[in-house]
């Protein structure tokens, strides 16, 4: 299908883009890689009158170490995230998860910021960002502000980014020594989106006690959420099989699991628990192995 007609804008700076957004407001959508918005426009699920393309805005892409965090520009493509030597060394789960998105064509065009700002309930990266406790840097007419990932995802395709704001950067804290993280995904057989995706990030001390646990769940519900019950079940415990099993059993609690063509609420809740257990086991293996 063809999209409805629209005007196309190519601002040359973040400021110019924000000014345009302020003027056009609800009639405008920001375009990053176009791998979520354009299909929606073709199906006419989205009919913006104006597209503001961010691809010519300098300074929005790139990956750099900044203090104790890795800062990823919003327009950085999934492939750049997947292949980043810096991320692979410091927070490999981010690269791993990026490599599980779509297919090579999608990864060469789709961006991490576009994915997070679009907040598709089956996107992969939200679960990873929740598990790692990322911060989202948002630019707007009132300047720059930073939002914690727990305050970012508001609902189905809704985020903390205001109508006149732009997601500019994602800041992921580098986990301390003794940490490990893993993302486990059950891909949709056609779209490759996550039917269920769970990311677990753990830190264990010298005695094998889990000192910190972050677990994010995506795909099953209307938005990515933090699995607080699982985190509580892991933190402070020696992570033997029984502890992991008991913690993972709580993975679907608090997720508004939706039935669809891929399965019932019961099945998808089960998948969340299984993938939580596998993600925790893999994360623990990495934590013990150093990364």
């Amino acid at each position, binding site marked *: 299908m063809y999209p409805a007609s629209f005007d196309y804008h190519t601002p040359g700076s973040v400021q110019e883009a924000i000014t345009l957004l302020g003027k056009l407001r609800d009639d405008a959508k920001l375009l990053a890689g176009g791998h979520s918005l354009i*299909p929606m426009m073709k*199906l006419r699920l989205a009919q913006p009158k104006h597209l503001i393309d961010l691809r010519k805005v300098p300074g929005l892409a790139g990956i750099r170490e900044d203090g104790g965090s890795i800062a990823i520009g919003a327009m950085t493509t999934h492939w750049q995230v997947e292949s980043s030597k810096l991320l692979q060394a410091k927070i490999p789960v981010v690269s791993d998860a990026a490599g599980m998105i779509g*297919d090579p064509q999608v990864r060469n065009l789709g961006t991490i910021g576009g994915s997070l700002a679009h907040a598709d309930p089956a996107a992969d990266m939200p679960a990873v960002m929740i598990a790692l406790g990322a911060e989202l840097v948002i630019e707007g007419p009132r300047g720059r502000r930073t939002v914690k990932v727990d305050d970012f995802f508001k609902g189905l395709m809704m985020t903390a980014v205001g109508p006149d704001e732009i997601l500019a950067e994602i800041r992921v804290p580098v986990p301390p020594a003794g940490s490990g993280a893993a993302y486990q995904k*059950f891909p*949709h*057989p*056609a*779209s490759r989106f996550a039917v269920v995706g769970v990311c677990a990030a753990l830190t264990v001390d010298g005695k094998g006690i889990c000192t910190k646990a972050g677990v994010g769940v995506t795909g099953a519900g209307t938005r990515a959420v933090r699995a607080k019950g699982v985190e509580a079940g892991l933190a402070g415990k020696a992570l033997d099989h029984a502890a992991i099993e008991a913690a993972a059993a709580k993975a679907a609690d608090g997720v508004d699991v939706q039935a669809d*063509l*891929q*399965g*019932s609420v019961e*099945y998808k809740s*089960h*998948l969340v628990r*299984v993938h939580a257990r596998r993600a925790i086991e893999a994360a623990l293996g990495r934590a013990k192995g150093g990364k």
Partner: protein
Amino acid sequence: MTVYTGSHSHGQGHETTFAQLVADQLGIPMAQVEIVHGDTAQIPFGMGTYGSRSACVGGSAILMSLDKVKAKGRKIAAHLLEANEQDLVFEGGKWSVKGSPGKAKTWGEVSLMAYLAHNLPQGMEPGLEATSFFDPPNFTFPFGAHVAVVEVDAETGQTKLLKYVAVDDVGRVINPMIVDGMVHGGIAQGVGQALWEHGVYSDDGQLLAATMMDYALPKADQLPSYETERTVTPSPVNPLGIKGAGETGTIAATPTVANAVIDALAPFGVAHIDMPLTPDKIWKAVKAARK
């Protein structure tokens, strides 16, 4: 040499295999053969390609016409060479008199004279054309054995096709690469039917799997590299000894893969699952059988 065929090619490679057949029979390069199909302005009648019949039926009709054209060409060549037909040798697309290969008539010279018509055998009608219809006395019966190795994740119902071996007997093969291509494509189609493809409708008749993001066609990364082999038992029901090859993969792959999945689930007591064998159905069947 132009061949007009009522058997239409929409990817089966008639332009190649039929041209091979002509080049082989007439001793001319494939580049001098044109295959015309699918144009109602040029083809008096055709029913297309179906039932894996094009090479068996269409190919045999082409062979019959080639025999007629060759017989007439031989008469013209003998006349031009002032020799008896039975003293002619046909080799490399040329006729010559036995024992004096220096004096030869090519297809070009013979064809030209067939239409110039000022030096033809007494009573011969000009032209060098033939139309043939082949009505096979029976169907052809290709046979073979396909084997699949499938891994099932009993916890999630996820399937993985690890290995696929296909041995088919399609009689004599004109072009092995094209036959392999048809077998490969057919296996993918059969696997898709067994495992993923499902046109789901809602109770009120809305097609729910209406886009390629929902309807799961098999993709390259879901399929192993197939192992294909052939035995050759010529068919007795057509002069080429050819049997249908186009549907060996589609027909065999579906039950092969479905049976492999059911075999993997045999320890759980699962004996049947309706196709497609999607993960949620497999999970449900295992769960029910375990009760």
